[in-house]
């Protein structure tokens, strides 16, 4: 493993990492009260999902409309641990069966179900947060990609699985807390997660994890594997005839996306204090896709900004004009797809970056020529407009960042 760091982290990306870090770790904590900061923390848990989608969808061309599955599984694993801690026999002495979660008692359960047992242990819980969703994604991936199910079919089947899981969670109230989810979570190893200081700390834990995931994503996309994904998106068959087992790459990137989502889900539970089926189903899953699309499906940084922006907008809209939010959201879906298929990242590349570079006049030569070449690609690709969809994808390649 002698990758030169420079190859994985070129200068432009290092700057982008630094800017993001400053905004999230310095500017926000200094300018916001803990209520707002906690909200940002919540938004950032969706950014994990969006980041995973950049790799799956932007790079690999696999659109999953079921990322809520993994977000939810990760979140529920964490919630089960916290709920067991909150349901100690002392805390639940008034129940007919003390020592089990309150909703089980309400549903006439007299014993903790077997699959809840291991969640007494923190190491197991942390393991499960990652492993359960990833293994589930692996099985879905094997079943689908080995049989070459892709595109629209894959999108809808993942959506169907999200629907199934939601119905199951809601239907099995005694085991899952039903439609309310797992609520009233209090402490993490005796440490009260509802206090302001805990929220501060959790915000920064969340940030560290987000940057770890960003680094993983950067490593994946800047490697040969990232280039194979790009190649696969347009010329799947050629990749096969270059001797690659395409399905394995899809399974891998789908699992990575699931893992990121699961971490986000677990951090959501910790920061918000509950988990419910509303974060698992069809609607949240597809909303997570729009976060990624708004940021720019090819941009790992865009995913973070997209998640923040859309959710800020959602919160302020729902506070002032709740009835307008769905209109705005619908318009967002349509306009991003029609007018900005590469999201904010493309706007940044087209307008902000040239301005910044002109301002500072220290644009390295390499970038200038690279951009020239890429502009040429665009004009060339316009000439061969009938040459299937490669044109738009070449243009899309400009915004990878």
């Amino acid at each position, binding site marked *: 493993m002698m990758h030169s760091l420079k190859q994985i982290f070129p200068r432009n990306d290092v700057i982008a990492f630094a800017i993001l870090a400053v905004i999230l770790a310095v500017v926000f904590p200094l300018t916001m009260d803990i209520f707002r900061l906690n909200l940002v923390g919540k938004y950032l848990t969706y950014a994990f999902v969006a980041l995973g989608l950049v790799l799956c*969808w932007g790079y690999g*061309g696999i*659109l999953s*409309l079921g990322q809520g599955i993994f977000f939810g599984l990760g979140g529920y694993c964490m919630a089960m641990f916290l709920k067991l801690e909150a349901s100690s026999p002392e805390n639940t002495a008034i129940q007919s069966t003390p020592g089990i979660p309150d909703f089980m008692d309400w549903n006439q359960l007299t014993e903790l179900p077997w699959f809840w047992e291991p969640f007494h242990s923190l190491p197991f819980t942390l393991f499960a947060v990652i492993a359960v969703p990833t293994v589930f994604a692996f099985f879905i991936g094997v*079943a*689908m990609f080995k*049989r*070459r*199910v892709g*595109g*629209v*079919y894959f*999108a*809808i*089947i993942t*959506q*169907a*699985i999200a*629907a*199934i899981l939601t*119905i*199951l969670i*809601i*239907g099995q109230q005694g085991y899952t807390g039903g439609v309310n989810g797992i609520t009233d979570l209090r402490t993490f190893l005796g440490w009260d997660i509802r206090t302001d200081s805990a929220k501060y700390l959790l915000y920064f834990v969340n940030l560290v994890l987000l940057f770890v995931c960003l680094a993983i994503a950067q490593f994946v996309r800047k490697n040969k594997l990232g280039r194979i994904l790009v190649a696969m998106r347009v010329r799947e068959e050629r990749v096969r005839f270059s001797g690659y087992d395409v399905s394995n790459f899809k399974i891998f990137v789908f699992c990575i996306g699931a893992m990121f989502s699961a971490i986000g889900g677990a951090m959501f539970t910790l920061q918000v204090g509950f988990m419910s089926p509303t974060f698992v189903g*069809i*609607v949240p899953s*597809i909303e997570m*896709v*729009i976060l990624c*699309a708004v940021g720019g499906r090819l941009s790992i940084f865009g995913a973070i900004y997209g998640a923040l922006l859309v959710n800020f907008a959602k919160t302020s809209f729902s506070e002032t004009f709740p*009835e307008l939010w*769905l*209109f705005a*959201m*619908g*318009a*967002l*879906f*349509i306009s*991003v*797809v*029609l007018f900005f*298929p590469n999201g904010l990242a493309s706007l940044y590349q087209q307008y902000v970056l040239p301005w910044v570079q002109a301002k500072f006049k220290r644009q390295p030569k390499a970038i200038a020529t690279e951009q020239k070449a890429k502009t040429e690609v665009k004009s060339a690709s316009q000439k061969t407009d009938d040459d*299937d*969809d490669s044109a*738009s994808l070449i243009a899309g390649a400009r915004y990878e960042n």
Partner: protein
Amino acid sequence: MFADYSASELTAIFAMQGFAGLILFSVLVLMALGLAIIFGQMGVINMAHGEFMILGAYITYLTSNIFAEYMPSLFVGYFFVAMILAFGVTFLLGMAVEWGLIRFLYKRPLDTLLATWGLSLILQQLYRTIFGAREVGVSLPDWMMGSYALTDIIEVPINGIFVMVLTLVIALSVYWLMYKSGWGRQVRAVVQNRPMASAVGINTEKVDRITFGLGCGIAGIAGSAFTMIGSTGPTSGQLYIVDTFLVVVFGGAQSLLGTIASAFSISQAQSTMEFFLSGSMAKVLTLLFVVGILMLRPQGLFAMKIRH
């Protein structure tokens, strides 16, 4: 779960639930037909298909109210008027959507998925603004209300039979339209070779637009049928899009017969299981079963082998 019932009781239960599932079957078939036509033509899933269905349902609701208010004597026949109106309005809206949105997104099926989802959000909010968030119900004319006693314990709802006959008529017309008429030939020509079809003088844009409108129009009729099994609310349609898509792929996207067969098996499975299990578990098992089958046979039950 069968142990508590005797054999004759079981037969009766299966028969009753089977007939009860007829309307669900009809709704699914009509929805799936519309979706399959659009999917076959453009390779995209119209995620707003459920909202088109609900539009049909709302129009049926409006028509019934207007008849009840102004023409009570004609109320017996309002349903036919409602269906025609439901078809017409959704057909026109479908064409408008194709013109304003879909035609820019050919060759980008995944993006179309997202864009039509956005459209569905907008339509939902529109319904909420116009009709309110509460669900509305439609009252049926008397002749459709009762049921016909087949034996002592088996009763067949009349509206179920009516809707099923209607569905068959529409399915046959669609079959005729797509496979026997000159227009259907044009559609198939466009699907198979767009530049060539265009070169021989077929107006491919018009074919696309009408096909999309037709798919939506059939969803509108499905909405009329839907008012008989459920009350209509702004988000009622969303629940159907996944089921409908599963029906389409389960049957094999190109096969009309397959679509009908798979709608039948899915609706019957669900309806029958609902009697023995809770509704949600019946749904889970049905969906799991379909997803399982699709993983084993992704091309659907009735697909052909196609040369590259």
